[in-house]
């Protein structure tokens, strides 16, 4: 395990930002952290970095306690904050070298290659960068480092689609090189393409965690069919939800474990056409977000 956190609680005044959060990230995986605004993703990452101390709970990052052994842990990880602010009078190249230098030096050819891939102009003063370019500076510094663990808070916010593709390629390479990546994101397609496992955070708690296949398994499949006979009685079958008919077309959602019992019932009514779709990540997500109370 690269990261184990259990029962993390953190309150800011009256806001309970983390409310018993458990998070497990395996070494070498790309782990996605999803959740609505204000769910506590960034706070969780800051606790993992030892910038913020949890009120209670246990944290272990790369085998150490990030609050007590912050420097030792930081030597082995790199972080891109959710909001990147840089020193206005320094150039992007200087910031990259500064952050690398603090880590004990980074091979310059790696930096140069990253700068080139992200099409960053390292001679510009940071005050002159657009917000996307500021993020690129932090990304280049993190990706070019030899850190074993990359902690990325919304790494592609503000990047154009081309740069998002470059970023995804870099993350794949990082995984191939055996590095662990933990990323918080709102871009579902990106999470779907990149992440081996996902944790969904809501109100300071992980409400669901696992590979996408596992998560899907727990939810519903959507079914669309054209039937010869009327759809009477289908709605009453256990595990069937939200059934609607339009002429000979019928649509409904069905629990994954009830699918086996529903298919014969469809067959009895003469299936002319059938489409079964696993839930998209978006649906998965909305099912978690939607139950906000």
């Amino acid at each position: 395990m690269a990261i184990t956190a259990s029962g993390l609680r953190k309150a800011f005044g009256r806001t309970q930002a983390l409310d018993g959060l458990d998070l497990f990230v395996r070494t070498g995986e790309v782990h996605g952290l999803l959740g609505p605004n204000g769910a506590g993703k960034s706070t969780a990452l800051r606790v993992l970095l030892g910038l913020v101390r949890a009120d209670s709970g246990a944290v272990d990052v790369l085998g150490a306690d990030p609050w007590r052994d912050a420097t030792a842990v930081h030597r082995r990880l790199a972080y891109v904050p959710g909001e990147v602010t840089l020193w206005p009078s320094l150039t992007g190249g200087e910031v990259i070298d500064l952050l690398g230098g603090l880590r004990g030096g980074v091979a310059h050819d790696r930096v140069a290659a990253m700068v080139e891939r992200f099409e960053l102009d390292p001679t510009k003063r940071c005050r002159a960068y657009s917000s996307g370019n500021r993020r690129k500076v932090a990304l280049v510094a993190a990706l070019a480092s030899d850190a074993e663990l990359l902690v990325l808070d919304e790494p592609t916010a503000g990047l154009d689609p081309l740069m998002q593709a470059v970023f995804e390629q870099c993350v794949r390479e990082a995984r191939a090189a055996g590095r662990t990546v933990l990323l918080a994101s709102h871009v579902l397609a990106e999470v779907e393409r990149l992440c081996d496992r996902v944790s969904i955070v809501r109100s300071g708690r992980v409400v669901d965690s696992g590979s996408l296949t596992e998560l899907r398994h727990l939810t519903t499949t959507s079914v669309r069919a054209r039937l010869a006979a009327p759809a009477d009685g289908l709605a009453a079958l256990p595990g069937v939800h939200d059934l609607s008919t339009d002429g000979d077309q019928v649509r409904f959602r069905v629990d994954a474990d009830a699918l086996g019992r529903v298919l014969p019932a469809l067959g009895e009514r003469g299936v002319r056409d059938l489409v079964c779709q696993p839930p998209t990540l978006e649906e998965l997500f909305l099912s978690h977000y939607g139950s906000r109370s």
Partner: protein
Amino acid sequence: MTGLAGVGALVRLALRRDRVLLPSWIAVLALVAISSAAATGDLYPTAASVVRAVGAVNDTPAMVALYGRVPDVGSLGALAMLKPLATGALAVAVLAIVLVVRHTRAEEDAGRLELVQAGAVGRFAPLTAALVVVVGANAVLGAVTAVGLGAVGLPVAGSVAVALAWFAVALVFAAVAGVTAQLVTGARAATGLAVALLGAAFGVRAVGDTAAPWLSWASPLAWAQQVRPYAGDRWWVGGLAVLTAAVVSTAAYALVARRDLGGGLLPDRAGPARAGRDLRSTTGLAWRLHRGPLLAWAAGFAAYGLVVGGVAADVGGMLTSDQARQLFAELGGQGELTDTVLAAMLGILGVVASVYGVQATLRAAAEENTGRAALLLSAPVGRLRWAAGHLAAACAGVVVVLVSAGLAAGAVHAVRTGDAGQVGRVVLGAVVQAPAGWVLAGIVLAVYGAAPRLAAAGWGAVVVFVLLGELGPLLGLPGWLSDLSPYAHVPHLPGGQFSAWPVAALAAVAAVAAFGGLLALRGRDLG
């Protein structure tokens, strides 16, 4: 004009953000003026005693350099308001600069202005709103002060003239800050440039009042005294200030019209693509962040030193009346008069150097509040080392600016007196001021460590300590209260008694405060 749309909303926003700053600033200034007026009335009950006191003040070049002259030998009001008028003028000028930069350039740097201007807010609205706030705050301050001064028995017309005098200075420096906010590339630099101009105005007035009265007219800061409250009440000087402010703020508006949001007037040139060897550690970064302001401060201090060194020898000889000699001897001990002049001037430098210490230490808070500290401290850098780096830069900077002033003053003074030994004496007199500055830096770090949002309260400490020194004797405050101020323990050098222990004690207090701050920082969340 659509360029002004939204001024009302911005003024309300500014008043809300300044709901603590403005009332406390107004209350402190008004109370200082009113209480010293009341106290002075008790000190000089007869007309003859007033004349004697005014004579002593006007014959004491150090007093004249600091506060200006009392224009009328027989006016109790003019005597009572000499110090409050001068220090108040400085204070309202600083407030005007802070307010204007805070509501224009600082908002722009934070990116909030962009958000605001995307709404129905005109291009010229932020500057206008800032100026409106300055005018309004000073109108309230003036009204409160005038009523208070009248209530303690000073003539009404003169009391209104005091209000006008401050108003004039605030107006001019608000306009100046409006220009500097447009000229340079950031709030910090904009404040720095405006304060440097204020410092120059102070220097011109000090030299003018002691040596060449016509020169004082070149300093807007001196216009406060030129209004001559209780000594002729020259209202037209207010007109001069309004005219000047109008011209300068027209320039500010013209600059607003020409400049893009976020930029300076001069485009940024490309910089190095790679960091040099020196920028690969937190120490290197601290040096990069502090060196620009430090060099500017050191240059300013050296310039002040040149002036002090140039006039010190003459000023000592100009003390003619016995009262002045006596007053001076009381101020500085038994040393030679020239020495006491030098010591008094270096004492002011000590206070100003501590201002450097405060603002340099506050850099750590700014780094945290902008989120840059989080990025930096996610690298293998201990947060104590990082914070201690900023403190060290602040404390070393205090010494650097004092030495540069001491060297400049000492060298010129040595040339004028033909005595090379003066260099060392003057430099020592400057350097012994440093521990008081360290104490303030330590206090700021202590507050920052415990509550980063309150770190700016360090400015409050400077104001309180200065007031304890200024008002303590006048109001008859108990000794222990005045002794809370670190400035009270600095040896008066050259000329006075040097003793190492108060210096060491100040350094120890600074160390304890700083240590407490670091301890608190270690145990709290980093924003």
